[in-house]
């Protein structure tokens, strides 16, 4: 190719293109394209702010640099052993309902649970009642099958005060009072048991419905609601993105009177934090021009002094306060 061009040149035939013209042309085109992309990307994308996903973030979750994929509003993950002591006393009441749901219940009562599971009904009953040692055991007893309810009526403190007025009738003997007391107590126990069974059934149905909804929802198929993370997370750390945390925090601490929510007001602030998560400063990049609006924005960013977790390096965030979306009718 080179030779033929040189030959043509020597033979007096002029070439249409300079040597390397193709490369230069390609470079020129590439540069033009990049320039257009750059200018349109940087200068014009800000005008129409793209629709943002609205997050509901649980501020309990700590922000991390590389959040994993998950749900930002999910409750923080708990260690399995932690809830055990806390739920022990609470287990007395609702114990009967969760019976069909073995997962949460057994954990709180490590000692008692194995017994009901392995031993026949009568055995665990007295033990459970003794262990509680408080008037509350009534529900605990209900946890066991119905016929076992009868042996522990005295533990039913709540009905006692209701029956108390009965002795005022002088014509009733002690035996009759006792009989009425027993009848009322038994009736009350039955009633409580029925209520508990009904509510347990309702709870169970609710859980089933929730499970079905979670399984069927197209929006949650890829994101586990159990996992603490960011919807757009690609990292491996459990936690939410700093941006999500800051957005939720500032939204909660932004005070703007209803009488002052007007269309067209918008401010942009840059917030800077050092590597320890302390706010090092802020800059009002674009003020709205409205005194109260801008002050409310400044008060809001001032309320965030420290990030709940240190970022790996000093960081700055550009924050746009723009209530216009909310004012759309």
């Amino acid at each position, binding site marked *: 190719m080179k030779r033929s061009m040189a030959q043509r040149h020597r033979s007096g035939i002029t070439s249409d293109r300079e040597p390397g013209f193709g490369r230069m042309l390609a470079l020129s085109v590439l540069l033009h394209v990049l320039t257009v992309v750059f200018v349109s990307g940087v200068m014009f994308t800000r005008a129409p702010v793209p629709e943002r996903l609205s997050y509901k973030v649980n501020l309990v979750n700590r922000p991390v640099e590389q959040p994993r994929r998950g749900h930002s509003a999910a409750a923080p993950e708990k260690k399995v052993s932690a809830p055990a002591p806390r739920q022990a006393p609470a287990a007395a009441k609702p114990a009967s309902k969760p019976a069909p749901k073995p997962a949460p219940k057994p954990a709180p009562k490590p000692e008692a649970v194995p017994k009901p599971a392995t031993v026949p009904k009568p055995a665990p009953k007295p033990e459970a009642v003794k262990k509680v040692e408080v008037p509350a055991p009534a529900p605990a007893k209900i946890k066991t099958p119905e016929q076992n309810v009868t042996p522990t009526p005295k533990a039913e403190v709540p009905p006692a005060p209701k029956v108390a007025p009965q002795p005022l009738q002088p014509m009733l003997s002690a035996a009759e009072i006792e009989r009425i007391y027993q009848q009322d107590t038994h009736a009350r126990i039955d009633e409580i048991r029925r209520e508990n069974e009904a509510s347990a059934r309702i709870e169970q149905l609710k859980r089933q419905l929730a499970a079905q909804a979670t399984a069927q929802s197209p929006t949650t198929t890829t994101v586990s609601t159990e996992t603490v993370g960011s919807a757009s997370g690609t990292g491996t750390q459990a936690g939410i993105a700093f941006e999500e945390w800051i957005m939720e925090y500032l939204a909660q601490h932004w*005070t703007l009177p209803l009488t002052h929510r007007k269309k067209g007001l918008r401010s942009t602030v840059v917030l800077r934090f050092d590597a320890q998560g302390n706010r090092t400063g802020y800059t009002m990049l674009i003020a709205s021009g409205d005194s109260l609006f801008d002050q409310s924005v400044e008060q809001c960013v*001032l309320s965030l002094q420290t990030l709940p977790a240190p970022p790996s390096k000093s960081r700055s965030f550009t924050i746009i306060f723009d209530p216009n979306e909310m004012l759309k009718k």
Partner: protein
Amino acid sequence: MRYTICLLLCLVCLLCSAGSLLAADIVITTPGRSAIPIAQPTFIAIGAADAQVERTIDEVLTQDLELTGMFEFVERNAFLDDASRLALTTIEVNFPQWKLLGADLLLKGAYTLKDGQVELKLRLFDVNRRRLLTGHNYKGSRDDVRRMVHRFVDQMLETLTGTRGAFDANIAFISDASGHKELYLAEFDGHNIRRLTDHRNLVLNPDFSPQGREIIFTSYRKDNPDLYRRSIFNATEARISAREGLNIAGRYSPDGREVAVTLSQDGNSELYLLGVDGKIHKRLTNAWGIDVDPSWSPLGDKIAFISNRHGNPHVFIIDLLTGVVERLTRAGKYNATPAWSPDGEWILFTRLEQGGFDIYRIRPDGSAEEQLTAGAGNKEHPRWSPDGRFVIYSDDVLGEKRLYIMRADGTGAREISPLPGRCSHPAWAVR
């Protein structure tokens, strides 16, 4: 070639960084709270205390701040010891205490009684930034305490919003307390009432001059609805238009040099521009229908008015430069008394629906019409406060006509009391 590659790499890096910058934007669209928490401890007496003065200060401050709808008061029971200390400087105030209580603003003050005079010191602090936002000392008689507090709240609103409040300004209204409908003057909250006219006949439609020194109104004193002009500070009064027929609904232009008024000297109600001496400068309308109730735009280039030239009474706008008239409202069968807001954003008007008048507002371009009041009674003659924050109007929901005040968005309506007799046709003066 190397140079080109370097250039390309730089461009790519720049694009990437620009992209990451854009992605870092956090957009907050919904404010979590709608009222600024403010702590306002009882004012401290320097020397002899006076329960009446303290009560008045508290009452007026609470009333004015509540009326704005911008603040929520921090519970006084939670106050710590700084509330009872005479600390009026940023060095003395214990800001952490107030921050602990969740206050963003702190309003502190003290008063001194000396020789029948009250000296009032008021300070507004920014708790988060630990700085004084505004502070003033006032001195006057005990009767002036209310005005001192009104004035400070006005100052406070200016500091916070850039627009001065209008609490320290009078309102004019018509009342029949004397047996005749006469013109009265009072503070916006109904205190310090005084009667201006004694025409012993029907007086209507007052309007303040932009400087707030004069007032024009219509009176049947001579058995014809004539236009009068009166000084507020003395009893000087002049009848500036006594033409045959109606001389009603006079409204000062924003520069105070002209008055738009409805005259019917030619047999039909038309709008005219008069000089403040009563001479006709210009006839504005010439249509077969009636044209009444003019209201100036804040720039003075347009006037909203009511006309039934298309059948039912509707709001129209006339451009004073071109003379072009445009229809503004299209709904309803009876619209009346337009009032252009001081910021030019809204036009109030009343509309008769289901047997009663209610107040509406609409943008001057005809968009965003919305109803501000509802319920029983006739809400009539709405007028703006000079700062555009409030609307004052008359309502007969309780049987007799009374004056009410509400925020510009229709919230926070309350009766202005205690005004004598049946009251109507309010107008709010510029300070």
